[in-house]
Every structure is written in structure tokens, then in C-alpha cells.
């Protein structure tokens, strides 16, 4: 069903333009990455209108972008990328980052093969479900004083590693080493601290998950070899974010930024796009608070990985060395980053909003750790719990998307439609017949998250690979899934 009737011009096999003439107030064109087949689904909700709305942001550079997993969000589309020029009054929008600040993915390898775990898979899934706090209202084990909490917000993953949750090597394999600079704990309200308290080391609910997977397809042998990955190998994927702390930060700044619209004379078509110049007092304060939430999210995923490692050690009676559970990478997909780009021959400092989009730095990028300088940055793309997930790497061509790519399969059905479609069915039994063990804390989570509620991640990845904005490395298939 087509809901969106606006103008869409085909640029090439993988790109579609919403011209800025579509709507008065657009400062740049919108560009959607999709193929001929997927673009039909994309017109089925209001996401393209949101791509056009983002083009209103003051200081936006080049275009308002959308990845092939784009769907209707609030304010920004999910799958949206927008870069603003900080030195010429470019803005930052809390809604362009979203409530779950620095929500992201973490991929961990193991030395296990599928044949090693088949007989223990159920034990493993039950043990992970028992030992990793998940679901609405769950509390973590880590209880820290207000003073230490402020340190955690500045030091991120490093703080939790120093307190026993992981290894120093993990930091190198985390975006920003698990702590982006410029975090300002004073910009985080007492209410945000209160809401995030006791939630470090909790998965959350909804689409957040912990997944045991097997590599079932290799696309790039040399890169797999460099990462120490091969077919049949077991991996662990973690999807979570900044929990209540991040939600509260976004909530409060979204509210405050509505006032900035009149103060800075900004015209946007939706209150949820409220924004302020990055260099304004409000912009700087939000950036400081957002970075705290981002660091909290990296620390959270670090704790979750640590808890999962302990479960693996117990279930398989193996030590950390034999298990080889090394972190491949951790990368966020809801975040605003300050990055430098060459725009029309001039170096510009941009604020890149990625709302449901993943940073994908190319080989040789100065911000990459030594071990990924040659290969490019690992990019982790989860699919639904019945199909596949992918490991990709960044490419130089992705300069056209401010080094950004997709973030997942992208939803297709609303949650209520998914529940209706699954009435009378047992999703866990259907998945079990395909060899996938699933457990969830929420009563309706499995139906809401049913595979058919999502686009096919294989098609989404086909577009970003085909368009050259990232490159397939290997594909994983789920074996055990813990949902919040």
C-alpha cells in the first residue's frame, strides 16, 4: 500500500532523490538508498516525508540521507543521516539522535564451532536468560555511588573494565575506545541519574537482544582471516543502549530545544525536530549530556558482554583463554558525532546525526585502531531473529553518506500488526523447528519481534553492498536468542 505520494526521482540503481522543490523550506535534496523493489515498501509509511522534513535543518550539508532499512520514526526517520556544518551555524537535534542514545551492537567471537555447542545450546540459552537481566523494570548488579556514576559517564567502558567487567583489549575494539571525549556530567540532570540508576548491565526490552550465532557464509576471505573468523564458528551479538539515563536526557533536551526554535529563528515542520546551533550554549550542553549517555551505553554493553562471557565459561567448563571470546567491535547506531570532511575542496567540521544508521569508516581512517586500519571499520548489522545478521566493513565510497551505512533489517509491520499476524501461533516453536532457541522476558515480545515484522536483512545489505557504501565480510545465522 502506498501512503506517500511525493516526488521520487531515480538517480541510479540504488539511489532515489526527493528534490528540494518538493516542499518549501527544504534546504537540500533528500536521498534514499534502496533498489527498485524495496522503494515500494518505503513508500508504505511516512518515512519519506520525514526525510524531506530533516532537509529543513539549518546548516545541513549536501543532502538528507536515508538508508535502505529506513522506516517511519518520530521527527527523523529511522535510518536517517544528516550532517550539519558547525562553523556556519549548523544545528544539533536531540530527536535526530533519539531516546536510546548510543543504542548499538557488539559482536564477540569465540573459539567454539557449531558441533561443540549443539548439545548444550538449550543450557546456554537458559543460562544467558537467567544471568543477564532483561525486560522492562529489570535491575542490574552494578550499584554505584553518585560520585562514581559521574566518573562512569566520563570514562565509559574504561571505568567498568577497571572495576572487573572485561579486559583492557576490549577498549581498543570499541568505537571511541568506549568513551567519547567531551562528556559533561553536569549537563545530565538529577532525574536522568535517578532513572539510569541500577540499570548498568541490563539489556532492556523490545528489540534489544543477546544472540548466539554461527557464521554460515564467508564473503571476504582475507578480511575474515584478519578478524580470525571462519565458517561454522560461533559468535555472540549484543544489542542494547543507554537505558533510562539516555531516554531521560533526550526527553529533557527535546523539551528545552522547542524553546530554541523561536530563540534562534528556526523553522522545522515537526516539534520532534527541535534543534539549536551546535555552537550555542544549548547545543554544547546537549552534546555534553549526549556524550555521557553514549559512554553509559558503551559501559552497559561492556557489562553485558562480561556477564555473557561468564555464562559461556560456566556452561562449557572452559577458561577465557580457550573460549577466545574476543570483541570484534562495538558500534553505535543512534548518535551525533563531530567529524571532519572535505566538502567541495574545503575541510569542514560537521555534526553527523546517525538515527538508526551505523558509522562505517574506510580503510586508513585516522580514527580507526591499528588492527582495523587495513580492513576498514567493522560494521555490525543485525537481522530479525529468524534470518541472518551480517558483519560488514566501511569503504571509501561511503564518503558520499558521511561514512554511514544501514543499521539493521528495518521494521515493516507495526507491533500490533505483528501480534495480530502471530495470533494462535507459537513463534518459539516455529523457530525451534528451524533450530533456533528463543527466550523472552516480555509476554508479547516474541510476536512483536516475529521475523515477518521485518524487512529481509539480506536485501538491505544487498543494497548497501551494491551501492558500495560498505562491503560484506560474513553472514551469521541465529542459534539462540534472548529478547528483553
Amino acid at each position: 500500500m502506498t501512503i506517500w505520494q511525493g516526488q521520487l526521482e531515480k538517480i541510479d540503481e540504488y539511489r532515489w532523490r526527493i528534490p528540494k522543490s518538493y516542499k518549501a523550506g527544504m534546504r537540500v535534496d533528500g536521498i534514499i538508498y534502496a533498489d527498485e523493489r524495496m522503494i515500494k515498501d518505503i513508500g508504505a509509511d511516512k518515512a519519506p516525508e520525514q526525510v524531506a522534513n530533516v532537509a529543513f535543518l539549518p546548516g545541513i550539508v549536501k543532502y538528507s540521507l536515508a538508508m535502505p532499512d529506513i522506516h517511519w520514526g518520530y521527527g527523523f526517520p529511522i535510518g536517517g543521516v544528516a550532517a550539519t556544518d558547525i562553523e556556519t551555524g549548523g544545528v544539533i537535534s536531540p530527536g535526530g539522535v533519539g531516546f536510546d542514545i548510543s543504542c548499538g551492537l557488539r559482536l564477540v567471537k569465540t573459539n567454539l564451532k557449531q558441533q561443540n555447542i549443539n548439545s548444550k545450546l538449550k543450557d546456554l540459552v537458559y543460562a544467558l536468560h537467567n544471568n543477564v537481566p532483561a525486560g522492562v523494570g529489570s535491575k542490574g548488579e552494578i550499584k554505584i555511588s553518585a560520585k562514581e556514576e559521574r566518573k562512569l559517564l566520563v570514562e565509559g567502558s574504561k571505568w567498568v573494565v577497571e572495576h572487573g567487567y572485561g579486559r583492557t583489549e576490549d577498549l581498543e575494539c570499541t568505537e571511541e575506545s568506549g568513551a567519547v571525549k567531551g562528556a559533561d556530567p553536569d549537563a545530565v540532570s538529577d532525574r536522568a541519574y535517578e532513572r539510569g540508576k541500577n540499570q548498568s548491565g541490563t539489556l532492556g526490552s523490545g528489540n534489544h537482544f543477546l544472540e548466539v550465532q554461527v557464521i554460515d557464509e564467508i564473503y571476504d576471505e582475507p578480511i575474515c582471516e584478519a578478524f580470525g573468523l571462519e565458517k561454522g564458528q560461533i559468535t555472540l551479538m549484543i544489542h542494547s543502549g543507554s537505558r533510562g539515563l539516555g531516554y531521560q536526557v533526550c526527553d529533557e533536551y527535546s523539551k528545552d530545544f522547542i524553546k530554541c526554535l523561536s530563540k534562534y529563528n528556526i523553522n522545522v515542520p515537526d516539534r520532534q525536530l527541535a534543534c539549536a546551533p551546535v555552537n550555542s550554549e544549548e547545543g554544547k550542553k546537549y552534546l555534553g549530556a549526549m556524550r555521557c549517555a553514549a559512554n553509559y551505553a558503551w559501559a552497559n554493553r561492556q557489562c553485558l558482554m562480561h556477564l555473557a562471557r561468564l555464562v559461556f565459561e560456566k556452561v562449557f567448563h572452559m577458561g577465557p583463554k580457550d573460549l577466545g571470546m574476543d570483541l570484534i567491535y562495538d558500534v553505535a547506531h543512534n548518535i551525533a558525532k563531530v567529524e571532519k570532511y572535505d566538502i567541495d575542496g574545503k575541510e569542514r567540521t560537521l555534526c553527523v546525526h546517525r538515527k538508526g544508521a551505523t558509522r562505517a569508516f574506510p580503510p586508513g581512517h585516522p580514527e580507526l585502531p591499528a588492527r582495523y586500519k587495513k580492513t576498514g571499520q567493522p560494521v555490525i548489522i543485525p537481522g530479525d531473529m529468524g534470518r541472518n545478521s551480517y558483519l560488514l566493513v566501511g569503504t571509501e565510497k561511503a564518503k558520499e553518506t558521511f561514512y554511514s551505512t544501514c543499521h539493521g533489517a528495518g521494521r515493516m509491520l507495526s507491533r500490533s500488526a505483528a501480534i495480530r499476524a502471530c495470533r494462535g501461533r507459537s513463534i518459539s516453536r516455529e523457530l525451534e523447528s528451524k533450530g533456533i532457541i528463543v527466550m523472552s522476558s516480555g509476554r508479547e515480545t516474541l510476536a512483536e519481534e516475529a521475523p515477518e515484522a521485518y524487512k529481509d536483512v539480506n536485501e538491505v545489505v544487498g543494497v548497501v553492498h551494491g551501492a558500495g557504501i560498505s562491503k560484506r565480510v560474513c553472514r551469521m545465522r541465529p542459534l539462540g536468542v534472548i529478547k528483553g
Partner: protein
Amino acid sequence: MKRYEQFPHTADIGVRAYGSSLKELFANAAFAMFDIIADLEGLSGSVSENIELEAPNKEELLVAWLDELLYIFYTKSFIFFEFNIEDLTDTGIKAKVTGRPVGANRNRLKTEIKAATYHNLKIEKTDKGYQVEIIFDI
């Protein structure tokens, strides 16, 4: 009159709340939110909170009201289902809300709502009263 209904939103939850008065609209929007968070059937109230808020207009006041209730839910672990709105203007609300601690009712929890959003938010007057569409981020 129906208190609320859900409408399809791809990633999140859309709620259309109704009310014969603005007060009822605010109460029903809050009821809808907690009805999504938890199974409320058969619960009787044992805890109350007084809420007083201000905002520049009635749409922002509605989001502030819902977010305040969410904040109490997450920090004090109370599920609310009775919303007695004592005073309501376009820029201020005074209410007493009643509910139950999550405690032994943890298995009643269904969905984690992160926040109420401002996306396309508009309170509309209809021939039967008021209605509003709200997108909740979940």
C-alpha cells in the same frame, strides 16, 4: 466513549486518545500509556502521587504529563491507572494519580515505553469532545 485505540506505527506505538473534555483526554492518554506498559485488569489502587506541572501550551503539557508519569513509574516502580485531574488549563495541570507498586506485579509488565514524543502532536476538537494522536517510543 472509547478511551483510546492504537493505530499502526511501523517502529513504535501510536495511540489515539479520546475525551469528552480536555481533562478526560489527559486522563485517557495516561491510561492508554499504562495499559500498554502493563496488564491493569483487576488491580486496585494502594499508592497515590500528586502531580503539578506547567508547559507553554496544551500539547507540550500533555507530553510533560505523560513523561512525568513515566518518570515516576521508572524511579518509584508504581503502575498508575486512576487519574484524577483536579485542575487543567492550556498551560498547567494539577492531578492526583493512584496505582499500585510493581513489586509482586512484575509479571504484569508488558512493554517498555521510553518516552512520549512530540511527533505530529496536535490536540483536536471534535464534535464529541477532543482527540489526540501520540507516538510513544518503545
